[in-house]
């Protein structure tokens, strides 16, 4: 399943609290390679919207550091996407 690996890749959830943070998130998409899960793209981000995005393992530290520098609170929805990809096909019911 999936030749591309996602070891240490993370999915973050953030909620911008003002227009500066909205701009920061939109710019972040230009600095780092970000895959938006919700909304579909950085274009759609508005103030107070919950934004979920996936960052590859080699860029997570940089992204976390940038968010902290900009006072952006974040939640980590997925710590290691590769593990969760593998778990999806395991029936735990």
């Amino acid at each position, binding site marked *: *399943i*999936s*030749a*591309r690996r*996602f070891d240490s890749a993370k*999915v973050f*959830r953030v909620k911008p609290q003002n227009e500066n943070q909205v701009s920061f998130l939109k710019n972040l998409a230009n600095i780092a390679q970000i*895959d*938006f*899960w*919700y*909304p*579909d*793209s950085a*274009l*759609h981000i*508005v103030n107070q*919207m*919950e934004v*979920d995005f*996936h960052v590859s393992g080699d860029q997570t530290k940089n992204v976390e550091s940038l968010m902290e520098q900009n006072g952006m609170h974040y939640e980590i*929805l*997925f710590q290691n*996407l590769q593990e*969760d*990809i593998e*778990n*999806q*096909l*395991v*029936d*735990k*019911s």
Partner: protein
Amino acid sequence: STGKHSYTKYNDWRKISAWTARIEKRNPALVSRIHIGNTFENRPMYLLKVGKQSDAKKAIFIDCGIHAREWISPAFCQWFLKKATRTYGKDTNMTYILDNMNFYILPLVNIDGYIWSWTQDRFWRKSRSNTSDSACAGVDLNRNFDVAWGTVDASKNPCQEIYCGTSPESEPETKAVTTFIRNHLSSIKAYLTIHSYSQMLLFPYGYTYEKTPNHDELNELAKGAAQAIASLYGKHYNYGPSAATIYPSSGCSDDWAYKLGIKYSFTFELRDKGRYGFLLPESQIKPTCEEITLAVKFIASYILSHTS
């Protein structure tokens, strides 16, 4: 993948394709398989028509899997077919619906992208076409429909996830869907497109904040469908017009169907709200599909009693 097709597991395209032939063969009086076109990589696109064979019936068109990584979507289309064929003649409501209505169900729109998401990149979203001059492949098929195409949010950059293609309906997958719907427009009363995630039930418009002429009716219908969903496992689905409920978007299939004249047009965003995202576990396929089946039956019953 190994093993056989299962309604409670995610199936790769090979299994889904074989299943489309099998379900037709096992239910000849209820199901027929129609070849509606080919994908960019030349794979056949099969649509399943389900309903008791008779003339001039109303119909609902349902498509699944426009976005490759949203695996729960094609799982739902398969589930709904199973439910329809196995409860026909047993469940009064389903029997009445299928006696008086056809469903045109496209189990997987973005076949090439879906295969890519299984074999190469689990989080692939777009199709696999590479008709642009760029090295980046794929078009967001849900930005490729001929309604406000290339405006509002759609990107003209082939490397973006919401790249809308070189022109409206530039993609063979889009063309196959629109051609079929145009050719059956007189019978199609409702259009449902199944996506994930975020648990929402959306209706037009997406490309403008304006309300549709039948906004209040669509809102009531969406409310009833959301209540039907919640009745089973208590899952809360937000509902409302796309632009105001999520964000403005253009070139989307639900707006296109509505503008074409299908006045009951809905986008379902299935479970969940981020805990699993595109990685909804297989253990949640059954409850998710069960709750959405209730909503589809609710809408179908409404269409039967409120349209001519």
